[in-house]
């Protein structure tokens, strides 16, 4: 008879044999076996870990005694800012304590995201302050305190949490000014490893299978709709079941002066002929628009929309035609469509149409619920013009004018509907227009706006606009601009640089130093931003262009050392990230990819590039241009190949040059969607975007022979 140990050993040995056999089987199938079958066999070796299975954590009920970053102090009867949240203080109102009891006859709690913070003017000038001041100045029947609980980077669950916590303040009215962060919030949620991926993947794959690219957009819109419904539902129920009045302020978007980021416009992964048509139309468009050939341009743009109605490029281009034709209504629609289809990158906060439509549909204006629809309000305010840099500092954050208009109308709505005061909007706006921040605050806000726009690849003229406005408001900003020009031109990480230190100390009364920082190994050269600052400074007789050019050469010049052009300094002009897998090499998703390098006209520059293109069926050629002149033609196929080529000095300019790669596109492309291999949400985007090229290494240098010859 076997002993217990012997039995255990037998079981162990038998289990070992089975384990070895299964491993061998899995290995020999090399990942091609049926997954369900394999998982079932693996389950025979599953052991319990006694822990709860991974599932999404339930929503946390608000901590009693907590209100955002404030904690209730019973003895003082105040909510006081809590030290343990100190790192978050700069995201909230600069208010150390909030009395639990009202200090005025009416209490308004003001909730929202960074737009509600008055981002870039905060803490000096905020929508909450403008609202409070306006209501108290224009209203006659009551006095109001506005408790500012808006937070930059507020997400949906955070908003609901704070809303529930704020009931401890017994608000008479709650204003919710939010909607911009819902997509980035959704993307974070969909990327979360805590979420059961199959719950995420299966519905999107299913939608994609049935409806193609449109299916993905619809799925995301469904999620946004659900998110918005949840938010709206809470507040409408609150309004219905209590005396609390609610105001939804629906954000508007900078349609005229915020371009869809390049990362949101990758080549779509279309099949053969469609891709060919797309490419041909895309290539034509730029030239047609430049030449003013509007009919043809419209036709090309419409062709793009026809081929892929989920891609922003067609809409954006058509909007440009509309604007040139002065058809503002159409331009607005197309710009909104461009915004609504810019989901291929993480992008910045933006108000999607579905969110607005959901609020408008779900919320019926009632005695104690009001909607302030900024899209309609701005339209009226601008007399049909499309909102742009006059009303916005960037994509969604309001300028002084934007804050005045939005809060003026909100104040008027509250006064008329909740306080029964008959006040005209004209009277309100007359008061609001006098509420302006001091010139130093305006100057800094435009300075930060220039940076923020610059870091998101926006047009040079917008950057210049903000730089000029900044200097106009206060010439004191010049020193900061010079420091930033220095900082941006250096190769070292910003936090190491002396100019960073000086810049932060100089602007120590504000709260945006992280705006000068960048993720590790992800610094941008900020060429357009620096050039915009230098141009604006030059107009004030401060000319540092030559000094910055010299600095750029010293810091980045290829004659001093080999330069890796795949570093973010030379390969990116925006911090935006494409949604998709992160691979250990550079991927291009456009027809033409630009890289910067710094040289001078004394030496030829040699380049070494290792590249391939996974979507090519046969070998083809990539065209290399330097400063828009073709200098080389290199063979490329589906395997890594390395090329070395030299560019004569005559093609170079002193200081910053551009080397471009024009990628061949496979006109026999087969979409080949392997949907069963998708394990993560973002991998779906790998399928819908067409990678035109991949670069493993790309270096620029001057050879020692050339240096010696010179």
């Amino acid at each position, binding site marked *: 008879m076997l002993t217990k140990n012997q039995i255990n050993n037998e079981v162990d040995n038998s289990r070992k044999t089975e384990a070895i056999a299964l491993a061998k089987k899995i290995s020999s199938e090399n990942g091609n076996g049926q997954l369900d079958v394999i998982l079932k066999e693996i389950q025979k070796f599953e052991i319990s870990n006694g822990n709860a299975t991974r599932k999404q954590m339930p929503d946390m009920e608000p901590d009693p005694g907590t209100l955002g970053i404030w904690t209730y102090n019973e003895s003082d009867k105040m909510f006081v800012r809590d030290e343990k949240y100190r790192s978050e203080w700069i995201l909230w109102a600069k208010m150390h304590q909030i009395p639990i009891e009202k200090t005025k006859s009416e209490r308004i709690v003001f909730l929202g995201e960074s737009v509600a913070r008055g981002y870039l003017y905060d803490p000096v000038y905020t929508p909450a302050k403008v609202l409070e001041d306006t209501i108290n100045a224009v209203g006659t029947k009551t006095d109001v305190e506005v408790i500012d609980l808006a937070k930059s980077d507020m997400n949906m669950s955070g908003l609901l949490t704070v809303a529930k916590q704020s009931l401890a303040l017994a608000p008479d009215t709650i204003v919710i000014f939010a909607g911009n962060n819902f997509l980035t919030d959704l993307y974070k949620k969909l990327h979360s490893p805590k979420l059961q991926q199959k719950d995420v993947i299966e519905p999107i794959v299913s939608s994609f299978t049935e409806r193609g690219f449109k299916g993905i957009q619809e799925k995301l819109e469904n999620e946004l709709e659900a998110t918005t419904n949840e938010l709206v539902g809470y507040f409408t129920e609150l309004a219905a079941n209590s005396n609390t009045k609610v105001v939804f302020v629906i954000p508007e978007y900078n349609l005229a002066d915020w371009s869809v980021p390049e990362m949101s416009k990758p080549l779509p992964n279309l099949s053969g002929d469609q891709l060919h048509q797309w490419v041909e139309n895309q290539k034509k468009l730029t030239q047609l628009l430049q030449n003013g050939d509007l009919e043809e341009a419209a036709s090309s743009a419409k062709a793009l929309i026809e081929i892929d109605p989920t891609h922003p490029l067609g809409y954006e281009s058509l909007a440009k035609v509309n604007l040139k034709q002065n058809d503002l209504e159409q331009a607005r629609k197309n710009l909104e469509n461009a915004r609504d289809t810019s989901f291929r990158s993480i992008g910045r906060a933006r108000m999607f149409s579905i969110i607005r439509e959901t609020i408008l549909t779900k919320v019926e204006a009632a005695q104690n619920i009001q909607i302030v629809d900024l899209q309609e309000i701005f339209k009226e305010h601008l007399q049909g013009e499309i909102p742009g840099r006059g009303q916005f500092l960037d994509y969604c954050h309001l300028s002084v004018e934007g804050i005045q208009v939005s809060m003026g109308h909100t104040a008027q709505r509250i006064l008329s509907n909740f306080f029964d005061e008959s006040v005209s909007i004209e009277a309100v706006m007359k008061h609001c227009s006098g509420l302006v921040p001091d010139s130093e605050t305006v100057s800094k806000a435009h300075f930060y706006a220039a940076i923020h726009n610059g870091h998101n690849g926006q047009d040079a003229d917008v950057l210049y606009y903000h730089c000029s406005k900044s200097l106009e408001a206060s010439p004191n900003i010049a020193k900061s601009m010079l420091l930033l020009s220095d900082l941006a031109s250096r190769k070292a990480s910003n936090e190491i640089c002396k100019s960073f230190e000086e810049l932060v100390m100089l602007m120590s009364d504000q709260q945006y*130093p992280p705006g000068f920082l960048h993720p590790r190994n992800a610094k941008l050269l900020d060429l357009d931003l620096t050039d915009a600052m230098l141009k604006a400074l030059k107009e004030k007789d401060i000319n540092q262009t030559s000094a910055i050019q010299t600095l750029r050469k010293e810091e980045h010049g290829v004659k001093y050392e080999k330069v890796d052009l795949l570093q973010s300094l030379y390969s990116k002009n925006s911090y935006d990230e494409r949604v998709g897998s992160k691979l250990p090499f550079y991927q291009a998703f456009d027809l033409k990819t630009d890289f910067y390098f710094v040289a001078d006209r004394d030496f030829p520059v040699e380049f070494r590039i290792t590249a391939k293109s996974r979507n090519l069926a046969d070998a083809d050629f990539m065209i290399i241009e330097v400063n828009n002149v073709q200098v080389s033609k290199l063979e490329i196929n589906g395997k890594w190949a390395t090329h070395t080529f030299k560019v004569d000095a005559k093609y170079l300019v002193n200081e910053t040059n551009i080397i471009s790669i024009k990628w061949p596109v496979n006109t026999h492309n087969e979409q080949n969607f392997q949907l069963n291999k998708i394990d993560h949400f973002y991998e779906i985007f790998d399928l819908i975007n067409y990678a035109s090229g991949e670069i493993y290494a790309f270096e620029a240098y001057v050879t020692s022979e050339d240096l010696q010859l010179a």
Partner: protein
Amino acid sequence: MSNIIGISAYFHDSACCLLQNGKLIAAAQEERFTRIKHDASIPYNAIKFCLSEAKLSLAEIDCIVFYENPEKKLSRQLWNGVQNVSKELFKRLSPSRFETEIRDVLGFNGEIKYFDHHLSHAASSFYFSGYDQSAILTTDGVGEWATTTYGMGDGNKIELSEEVHFPHSLGLLYSTITNYIGFKVNGGEYKVMGLAPYGKPKYLEEFRSLITMKEKGQFELNMDFFTFQNPKAMFTEKLAMLLGQPKRPPESNIAQFHKDVARSLQSLLQEVLLEKSLYLYEETKSKNICLAGGVALNCVANAYLLKHGPFDNMFVQPAANDSGGALGAAVAAHYEMGGGPIKDNPLQHVYLGPEFSDYSVKRLINSSGLNVTDKTGNPDGLSKTVASMIANGKVVGWFQGRMEFGPRALGNRSILADPRSPEMRDRINAMVKKREAFRPFAPAVLESHSKEHFDLDHPSPFMLETCQVISSLDLPAITHVDNSARVQTVTPESNPRFAALLKAFNEITSCPILLNTSFNVRGEPIVCTPEDALKCFIKTDIDCLVLNGYIIEREKNPMEIKAYLLNLLGETAVSGIEHDAYTFM
């Protein structure tokens, strides 16, 4: 021409090396680039560095070699039990995972080879030892199934004749007790080794009951005390009952009990290794022994083995842990493909990582706005100036040449100080390391003078064995409580600049020894780039930073604001592995 890339990944400490025609061109650990300590992901950054150093492209690589056999490893993982079976788990465990990443993700089309984990360890040691033939002993937590292997190396052949299989593992035993004493697994084992001399082997009998020695090279752990299936704890309640106390909570007070446990464990390890080395000697009759595997980083045990064991000569692979597996796999492939003798045999140094030009360093310093003394072009002047600073009590961050490969800093990414100073250990702990007070720092010494100061009759270039301090000099900063030290011997041939500094220090002080500890703050990997070094310098209280030929002194540069901003706005240390249990799943 053969170009071979060796890779270790997925456990902890992933790394890459490039072997060209039998010559090591480059090697680096991924954590140094990503700044994620113990980073276990495929070392894409290290691969790119190695290719760049060799001036090669991926297309020119003949073969990529992986340091373990995924199929065998999967069988052991299945046998040990899996949790939360899902598509994700399968992807992680799949034997084709490495190939998928290398082919589909990286786009490599050439040959991919696999070598067993312990063979990779064995190769990483024997083929760089300089021995024509040698006994080989590899010991770690676990590879595929093997936790310990015994073998023989002869010329370009290695034969592993015996293996001990999981769960019976000296490495896991050591890690378990590390966990019990309240230190982190995969990192805290050094602390246990350092704590041991403060204790007595009072629990040796108890520890002997945890392991049964068997015939030949075999041994078995008593699995009543261990629970390697549990991802959160490695031992059962029985262990605590055996020793009479519960697990020590991390960061709590270390009592004499814990010191005694550490000492008992260390004694047991040494006993077992000695016994098994006797067996190995009987099998091989070789005078030489090569060690590798994580347990070979236990330099106290290594010294014990050399002193008391049957072998006259010992070589320990400097990257004895999994990062060294990349080296071993590459060399094994080289020989399998018919390659000639390895050119780095014996291994002269491990300075195989990136280096940075004076131009790039000067550019960085200019951007920082810090005042600097320029000694480029004047190496003598540099040595004398820095030696003088150290002699005056300064702690110096020393950044030179190519980064070391492996866990030790060996004079290119080091913090250096005067070993004669009684308060130097506490100072460096307070400034930079924030380590437990009991942990000693290690010395570097000019090889030509080593015998005068240490009981060491052979070179020890890689700091992998301890010995007794016999110096007439008082060296409190590097002498452990049992009078031992973990020595690095330095020659001008292996590291001219470091040797020159030691020489200069000797000329001033008549002491050819410096305290040498790794250049990093607690929780972060050793610095890789000049910028990493500068950030570390600013954030800590190191007195002086030497980047190539440039000297930056704290007293000439007010840095409070810089430090404040870096601490306020900079990155926090990240670890790439869990530390509650050994990451063999």
